[in-house]
């Protein structure tokens, strides 16, 4: 088991890279989608709504396999397992992020918006000075929770051959015929990395609790 630790650590590095990249894509695309959904134009709002519903109602495994096998066949773009996995994961996170952004912004009491406008601020000023500073604080805990979920979800990319922690584990388990030791070790690795993050998320929920 310990001889194979470097292999597992290699996989772990890939897991971390995937988490960071997918989160970045998720935040950027998610923000865009949230803005589209909040815009007064239905032509922007409807596709954004469809996007979030589609990615939130289907299993991540289906999304990953779909991007990996269907994109090359339909638009002729062949992506490596890494790129297609990252795309699917990033878009999945984006859908959940968009909802976090949207509910954060709409959760700020409308009266504040009206009061700021009544005081003579422009829409942009109201957004920047009044709504966003409060909304961002409320978005932090769910975003952190999303990060923890994402860290675990990267394991699904093993099914299309992205060489991350879970892939290495399955490879080693069949290579060494020691599934008990390998899978237990991998479970422990995931636990040791995820659990402190979950504790942090809990503290954030306490810290940023909104009292109205």
């Amino acid at each position, binding site marked *: 088991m310990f001889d194979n630790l470097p292999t597992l650590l290699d996989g772990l590095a890939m897991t971390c890279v995937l988490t960071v990249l997918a989160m970045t894509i998720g935040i950027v695309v998610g923000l865009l989608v949230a803005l589209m959904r909040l815009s007064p134009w239905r032509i922007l709002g409807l596709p954004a709504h469809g996007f979030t*519903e*589609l990615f*939130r*109602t*289907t*299993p*991540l*495994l*289906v*999304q990953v*396999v*779909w991007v990996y*096998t*269907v994109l090359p*066949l*339909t638009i002729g773009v062949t992506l490596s397992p890494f790129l297609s996995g990252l795309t699917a994961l990033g878009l999945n996170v984006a859908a959940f992020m968009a909802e976090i952004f949207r509910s954060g912004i709409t959760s700020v009491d409308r009266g504040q918006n009206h009061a700021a406008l009544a005081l003579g601020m422009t829409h942009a000023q109201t957004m920047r000075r009044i709504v966003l500073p409060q909304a961002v604080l409320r978005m932090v805990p769910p975003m952190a929770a999303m990060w923890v979920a994402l860290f*675990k*979800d*990267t*394991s*699904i990319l*093993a*099914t299309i051959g992205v060489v991350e922690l*879970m892939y290495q*584990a*399955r490879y080693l*388990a069949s290579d060494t015929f020691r*599934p*008990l030791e390998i*899978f*237990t070790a*991998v*479970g422990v690795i*995931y*636990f040791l990395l*995820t*659990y402190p993050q*979950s504790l942090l998320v809990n503290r954030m929920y306490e810290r940023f609790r909104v009292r109205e």
Partner: protein
Amino acid sequence: MMQGTTALWNFGVVTQNIAYLLAGLEMTILLTVVSLLLGVLIGLLIAVARMSRFAALRLLAGFYIDVWRSTPFLAQILWVFFAFPILTGIPMSAFTAGIVTLSCHASAYLAEVFRAGIQSIPGGQRHAALALGMTRLQAARRIVLPQAITRMLPAIGNQAINLVKESALVSVINLQELMWYAQSLAGFTMRSVEILSAVALIYAALTLPQAILVNYLHRRYAVS
């Protein structure tokens, strides 16, 4: 099985193989329903243990919850199917492993839902009930639980949705549910575009009504 045009988006392949997809759908629904029921039962026990007067029980229940919530589902299903039988000598079919993993996974999340729901009822209500001469059981049954359950309903609904989606992952141990049939058919018919798209829609059709119901419950039982 494959016939007709070779053009893209030939959904004939889906209708020709609909019987397989429906068999898979049946298994997906069976897995979800059974695991949700077992998850609620186990989750209740864990939640009670988590709130027990005995520190050992509390610690044990907390450890159970943290382990299931801090590891990926894929790692759990592979461990239960491949490692657990070696450890205990108990043979596991794919179906048993799927049910066990989905139920235990859901139970950890549900235990926290139950605990949060029960603890969200102000302690004063329980004290008042006890002061009026109710036993602890009566106070729980008549005062605390009726209020707590309505607050838990949306979260339980969310867990049901998650179970539908997570059950797709048990295809990796060759349990023949919707995703397993989808991937086999996609390989067999060479029409992965149509099969996988159709299956994505089937999943959406399965979870979307639940999501709408959860939203309704959220609004209906919103605590003001």
